[in-house]
């Protein structure tokens, strides 16, 4: 493999951004309401220039009211989940780590649900509660996953699965206290759903995303060293515990962010970093930004399918990612065992 230079990182990320752009255009084009590419370009062009009066109100509603916010939400959630997956994989030194498999997403969902029940009107409360839920679950799973003072791969996964099922049971129990229509909403949300954008302004969430992804990125050289062995990294002057703390907080924050707006969308955090590793190698300086963009591509793609395969009915996007993700997970696990 060629050495990783900043130039190479730049070109790979630019190429991935190009793929994302194509994906966004395709996603903008697809949907129950038929719009030609020409009309989409016209709508975007006039919209960007602020000339709303030149756009038919239907196009405005469909492109700016429905599809663009949903794509933006997909980019946000995909980037957050894939980066947090890469972060957890480094933190726990386990290639099968993923916010969903580890139960961290369920913890975030429980937090979000509690805040919906007790403080539904407070802006940002869902996000904060989801973060607390994610962070607490990560802590518990990390603690349970140790055997003889060492993190054990199998024990860790078991701890994650047990935590996830316990938390799911708690969520289901709380769900019985909700009214019928809130129960339906909750069931959809837990499967992972992008069809109902959050009431909070998206740019705050993007700000959190960029800060959290950026913080993990700043540790990437250190993560590379830690992956060769914590002891060795320490000898080379890496402050291992501080790096771990940064990754732990940022990855939990990203999981909480994604879950609070879109529910638990599984497997993206697992698959995307792995695919990136297979194609571009394991260097975290490339893996972190490439995973963020790759996750965005994956979710925008999955959500486009979710919107269109059984149109006009919509599937939860989590169903699409699990459908594709579960087989890949099994493949990775078997390959890992061998």
């Amino acid at each position, binding site marked *: 493999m060629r050495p990783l230079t900043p130039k190479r990182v730049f070109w790979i990320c630019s190429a991935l951004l190009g793929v994302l752009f194509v994906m966004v255009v395709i996603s903008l084009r697809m949907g129950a309401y038929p719009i030609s590419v020409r009309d989409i370009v016209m709508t975007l062009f006039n919209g960007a220039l602020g000339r709303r009066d030149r756009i038919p109100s239907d196009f405005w509603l469909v492109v700016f009211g429905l599809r663009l916010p949903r794509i933006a939400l997909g980019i946000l959630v995909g980037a957050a989940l894939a980066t947090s997956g890469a972060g957890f994989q480094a933190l726990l030194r386990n290639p099968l780590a993923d916010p969903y498999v580890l139960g961290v997403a369920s913890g975030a969902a429980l937090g979000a649900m509690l805040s919906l029940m007790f403080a539904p009107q407070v802006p940002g409360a869902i996000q904060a509660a989801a973060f607390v839920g994610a962070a607490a679950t990560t802590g518990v799973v990390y603690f349970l996953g140790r055997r003889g003072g060492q993190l054990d791969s199998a024990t860790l996964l078991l701890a994650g699965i047990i935590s996830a099922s316990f938390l799911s049971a708690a969520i289901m129990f709380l769900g019985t206290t909700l009214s019928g229509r809130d129960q339906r909403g909750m069931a959809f949300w837990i499967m992972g759903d992008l*069809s109902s954008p959050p009431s909070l302004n998206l740019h705050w969430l993007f700000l959190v995303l960029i800060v959290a992804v950026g913080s993990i990125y700043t540790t990437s050289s250190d993560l590379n060293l830690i992956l060769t062995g914590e002891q060795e990294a320490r000898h080379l002057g890496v402050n291992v515990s501080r790096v771990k703390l940064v990754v732990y907080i940022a990855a939990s924050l990203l999981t909480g962010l994604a879950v609070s707006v879109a529910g638990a969308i599984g497997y993206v955090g697992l698959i995307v970093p792995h695919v990136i590793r297979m194609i571009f190698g394991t260097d975290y300086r490339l893996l972190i930004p490439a995973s963020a963009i790759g996750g965005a591509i994956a979710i925008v793609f999955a959500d486009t399918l979710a919107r269109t395969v059984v149109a*006009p009915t919509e599937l939860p996007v989590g169903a699409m990612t699990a459908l594709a993700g579960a087989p890949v997970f099994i493949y990775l696990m078997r390959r890992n065992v061998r």
Partner: protein
Amino acid sequence: MLWRRIFAVGIAGALLSSAVPQARAARGAFPQAAASGEAPRVVTDEVGRTVSVPAEVRRIVTLAPNLTEIVYALGLDDRLAGDTNYCDTPPAAKDKPHVGSPVSPSLEAIVALHPDLVLATTSINRRQTVDALARLGIAVYTSDPRTVRGIIVSIARMADLMGAAGRGAALVAQLQARLDALHTRLKDRPTVDVLFVVWEDPLVTIGQNTFIADALRWAGARSVIESKQNYPRVSFEEVVRLEPDYIVLTADHEGAEESEGASLRARPGWSQIRAVEQGHVAVVGSEMDRPSPGLIDAIEQLARELHPDVFGAKTASMSSAAMECACVR
């Protein structure tokens, strides 16, 4: 050093993200559906939302089968622009453009139909769907059926919103008269304890706050299960202990066409229930679980099944034939 780098990235992020929300700023600024001269009417719907409806409603989209039935019962089907994949009654409703399933309809498909008014219900739609439509500036009236009288009032209100107050009043008066007649005939009769079966396996029944529980009361019956949950799961033991006089099924259940619960007796567990042993199984039309005008038909049918002596013995022996009628209709 590390933290300074994080800070720098954060600043860069703030600058970048300020470019993102341009599209977002447009939210809430969508124009109301084209004004038609007269000022829109502002009403409060049954879940407490303020809804601004154009004075003249020409295009309606329904998000649940019962709402489609109400629109047809009011004779407003020429204004029905679209309904859901599940809307099958009357059969003509199947030919209308569909917007998806009631739980997850496509918002785009709804927008594409240019509705003046969207009708939703708490009994099957999601709150998120209603919120999202409202944010797009589309008028959504949500009904909240909890009692039979509540459904009738709701029909009148929706008729009024759709500009058919007269037809609504006539329909409502007719439905209310039938309920009153039923009440007069049944008011001195003892109440029949029933188990209303929503689903056999696992056994799911109705809670006390559902409109079905209220419909049972109008038919001179009472659900033996008292639960605050709308559709509680209950155990057979509980049913055996409570000894209902009758088991009530709707006609869309598997094996319902076989009379007197022969098929129920064959199921494990059910044979232990006294009412099944005695053949006290009443089958009513599937209208029983739809909060629409057809519900009154189902109530009348159930009253005939449970109180054959009041309505003349011959209807009891013809119970399966009456059920067939309900199915066909």
